[in-house]
């Protein structure tokens, strides 16, 4: 379970997130929707301990941060290391033993394993970033604009990932892609200028507004 209460993030008296409250459980897939600058990325970065905040972020898991996988919008990898070394480094930091080849094959990275990360295309780097996030089979997964830079094949890989065992995970996706949100998310959080304007289940939103697009226009623009 993840419960966020009165979450505020500010920089030099400028409030980026204001009084965010929500609660989601294992098995939920939360979609965070909002226009540019609404605070989507800041919210995800705050949850993964990258930004100081006031309020509370409570995970109902011991050592929760060891069980979080995060895919930032702009992939963060060691560009001077090979694909394989990048994955090894993450495994080493987390003290996990797993079959590296299996992960490489699953994300269609096996043929690239000896290539330096700096030589990869944007889509390949993003795929590696996703592989790095799921390598330790985390209970909590956060994706910031996951489809940016992915080609159709890689998008399919990502959809397969979401469709596999989502019931024992808590997933948060921040995206502009309403189709992705509508296809996979069970709960939605709308953000506008750092405020949470609406939080509800997808079903209730569709029942109330008829389409996600209408709700988006109502709460985010």
């Amino acid at each position, binding site marked *: 379970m993840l419960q966020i209460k009165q979450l505020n993030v500010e920089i030099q008296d400028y409030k980026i997130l204001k009084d965010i409250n929500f609660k989601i459980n294992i098995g939920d897939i939360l979609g965070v929707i909002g226009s540019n600058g609404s605070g989507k990325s800041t919210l995800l*970065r705050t949850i*993964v301990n*990258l*930004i100081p905040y006031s309020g509370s972020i409570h995970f109902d898991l011991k*050592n929760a941060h060891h069980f979080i996988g995060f895919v930032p919008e702009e992939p*963060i*990898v060691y560009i001077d290391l090979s694909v394989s070394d990048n994955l090894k*480094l993450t495994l080493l*930091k987390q*003290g996990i033993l797993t079959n590296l080849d299996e992960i490489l094959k699953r994300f269609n990275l096996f043929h690239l394993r000896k290539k330096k990360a700096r030589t990869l295309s944007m889509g390949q780097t993003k795929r590696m970033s996703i592989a790095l996030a799921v390598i330790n089979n985390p209970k909590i997964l956060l994706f910031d604009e996951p489809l940016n830079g992915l080609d159709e094949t890689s998008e399919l890989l990502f959809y397969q990932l979401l469709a596999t065992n989502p019931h024992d995970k808590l997933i948060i996706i921040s995206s502009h892609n309403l189709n992705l949100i509508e296809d996979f998310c069970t709960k939605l959080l709308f953000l506008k200028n750092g405020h949470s304007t609406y939080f509800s289940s997808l079903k209730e939103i569709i029942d109330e507004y008829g389409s996600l697009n209408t709700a988006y226009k109502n709460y985010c623009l």
Partner: protein
Amino acid sequence: MKKLFYSELIKLRTKTNIAFGSVGICLYLLTIVLQTNKIDFNDLQYTNSIRIDDLSISVIEFVYTIFIIVFFTKDFSQKTIYRTLFEGKSRVNIFYSSILFIVLLSFVITIFSRVSISIYFMFKGANIQYIYNSFFQINQILLVFISLYLHSLIALLLSVSTKKSQWALIIFFSWILFSGLINIVLLKNGIDLPNSPIKKLFLYIGFIKSYFLQIIVLFLEQTVFLYFIKRSYLKLSWLKKR
């Protein structure tokens, strides 16, 4: 912390780092060769001493400081420091593993510098007793180690506070220039500071005669550096200014 430390070692194994290290070693050996090319090693008595450490160690310190700056600022420019954070490591953990890394690296380079000088002198035919007396003195080893350690602390402090290699390097070169100018001014006024690595690093320590006081001053200096480095790590945040 141990896992983080090992991950730093993996990051060391890149071609750029190996090339950097090789250039440093070549410069260091070249300095020694140029300083000793007129000495007949066969005639050396073990009671004689050749002062070759000042310049050669300065070369190592110089290359080492630049290396530490480039190595640590890369983590900020590539944002990989945030990867370590969101992979579940705390800011304090990152701080301790960085310090452990530079302590061990300073130690390894100290030993390397001593051993390589000895091998070179042996190769040139110097007396074994002479080599032992000149280069395996514990106080000399400590001096080089502390000097390298303090240089790496300064490099780390510059890296974590500027987060950009170009700014850290500009500050470092300005400081070198400033130290050089101060040295020239002091020399013109008839003040010749003993030229050991540490005294060169912190000019005013040259004025402290007591060995005990020097140790206290060095300890206080490293504490101040550690405090500011830790503070910078604790303040790490991936937030764009708006």
